[in-house]
């Protein structure tokens, strides 16, 4: 684990305002997820990876972009960990890492291609000031 990863973790925890250590890996989030089959890694795993600082993996996770922010996992999470916030925060982190912190409305059309769900753009746009 390196300091950069710890910084990433701190940043994500700040954005989510939730504690991944409270997760007891019951799997209810993953059980609730309508996009389960599209994902390579699932909500409880994303939470776990943040907790374990596995940012090398998170850097490559594609499942993030399939999360539709339906918030079912957050609604049902018995520990109030709210995995959807982690999904969102990790996405945010990924977008920021690509550089171009400032997303302008004019840039949005060119960002939309078939591989990127619209949700990702919307989410990034919504949260980027955080």
């Amino acid at each position, binding site marked *: 684990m390196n300091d950069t990863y710890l910084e990433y973790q701190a940043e994500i925890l700040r954005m989510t305002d939730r504690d991944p250590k*409270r997760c*007891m*890996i*019951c*799997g209810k989030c*993953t059980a609730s997820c309508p996009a389960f089959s599209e994902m390579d890694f*699932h909500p*409880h795993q994303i939470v776990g990876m943040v907790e374990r600082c596995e940012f090398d993996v998170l850097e490559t996770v594609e499942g993030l972009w399939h999360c539709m922010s339906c918030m079912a996992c957050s609604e*049902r999470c*018995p520990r109030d960990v709210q995995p959807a916030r982690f999904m969102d925060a990790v996405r945010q982190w990924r977008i920021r890492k690509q550089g171009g912190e400032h997303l302008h409305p004019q840039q949005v059309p060119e960002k939309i291609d078939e591989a990127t769900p619209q949700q990702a753009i919307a989410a990034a746009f919504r949260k980027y000031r955080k």
Partner: protein
Amino acid sequence: MQRIGVFVCHCGTNIAATVDVAQVAETLGKEPGVVLATDYPYMCSQSGQDMIENAIREQKLTGVVICSCSPRMHEATFRKTVARAGLNPYLLEIANVREQCSWVHKDREEATQKAIILGRAAIAKVTLNAPLVAGESPVVKRALVIGGGIAGIQTALDIADAGFEVDIVEKEATIGGKMAQLDKTFPTLDCAACILTPKMVDAAQHEKINILSYSEVEAVGGFVGSFRVKIRRKARYVDETKCTGCGLCTEKCPQKAVPNPFNLGLDTRRAIAIPFAQAVPKVAYIDPNYCTMLKTGKCGVCSKVCTVGAIDYKQQDTLEEREYGAIVAATGYRPISLEKYGEYAYGQSPDVVTSLELERLMNAAGPTGGTLLRPSDRTHPKTIVFVQCVGSRCEEDGRGKPYCSKICCMYTAKHAMLIREKYPDTEVYVFYIDVRTPGKNFDEFYRRAVEEYGVHYITGQVGKIVPENGKLLVQGSDLLAGMQPKIAADLVVLAAAIEPDPSARSLATLLTASMDTNDFFTEAHPKLRPVESPTAGVFLSGACQGPKDIPETVAQAGAAAAKVIGLLSRDHIVCNPCVATPNEQMCNGCSSCEKVCPYGAITYADKEFRMPDRTTALRRVAQVNPAVCQGCGACTVACPSGAMDLLGFSNKQIMAEVDAICR
């Protein structure tokens, strides 16, 4: 002249690692009045106590200060030590340098300084301590058990067997509680009724046991040894002394659409009913919410068919007041309401049931006569999904409970096993987070369900259940396989968390017994006094103290009984000597203190006083009954002249502590 001894405990490294105990002893040794200050690894050990005892004798100590763990931990221990050395046990003060110092501070210098200040405060207080002698009050040799489930029944039987009278107050029309609703019991699979009903009968027939069913505690006064309890005996509209329990009325009653509470509303019964076949007392009662006669004044069928004339539509609630030496709370538990778990479709589909409902569906005396049929269409379910931890270990506000309900893993294994045994063609899935089986023969039992009965245990939770075309579509997660299984089930069983019976909250207030944040009764000490409440004379039995299975409940019931027997076998109990005491010279007789006393311990008397001009005059002054006073101190502040003081926590003592701390 004071001769105070100061003893600083290391508590191994618990204190010594953070507090420089030698420096504390050295510094406190220089305080005025201190003639001895020393430290020792374990003050509470035999050799530590011997050291204190010897020091008191050799140094002729007039007061003892022990800097150690919380007085809530060892004050009683050290009081005995001090008493053994011939010193009044109340000439002891404890400075809490463990829980409130070494364990909460990290900086050694800061913690040491604080320990010194706490020690000084204790020295300042002990300097003003007066020898106190505890008074005595008589013990009424009768116990009250509140709740007639297995916990209450067992407690009552054990107390009664020791020769003391016991009253059981049960709010329902019969004793038996939740256990009477269970089918089989884990891990032996013997039938609950077979082992419970004989106990119910024993209780009913025991000459020392008096069952007050369909009754509730309304008020509690008094204190340990002599509680005065008001019991409301609710009108059952049936004369308990005449009813033979023949059951004729329950067959003839024309009001048939009454949801049967014993079967959790899964079937119906009549407005007049005997709760179940083995009910104790086996006496009918009328539910006034459904009885046509009571509601409209027209009907009277039961009265006509009753051969002994036991029906009495004019019966009223009555209040009885009785005295007890001890009270046992055995109010039990109930499953939580699942209305906030919309994702599990409970209430949307009748085929989503709780585990307790499943017990009734599998019970021979249940609505289906023991054949497992699903409620919606009375067919055999072929695929059954069990969901664990519904509301347990849930920290969301308002939905569930943060604790583990403890019994679900085992009863689910039981259910799964029984279903697979009786209906081998049924597939049973169990979604779980952990399987917790720390009990004798428990894990073996669970493994049998998996290995011998082929129950499918899936590590993961259910996300949602959707009723569709007569099936229940269950979407869960299998965390080990990395799958999201979707099962079309016929029946879903939810292991609902259990919570204390709601009557416990108001009872706790009546008993002035404390409760934790989940409304379970708090024990006097979580490890060392698990069956006593902090309120003297109030004991805890069964699930009202925390989730428990039957063997544990019975064990705790016996333990509570033993404590009650210990109390009732004494003729007198020693009172808390730290009671309010009025200075009659200063008392104005204004009645302020009396008005705030929660125990009615204060009365007034006209007494003759010598006046300054050498005449005598009658003055109204307060008197405190030390056996009734519990020492809260409300009166001491209500008193404007400071005439009322509290022994052991006197105005001067507390101000001396304040002075020492702010020094």
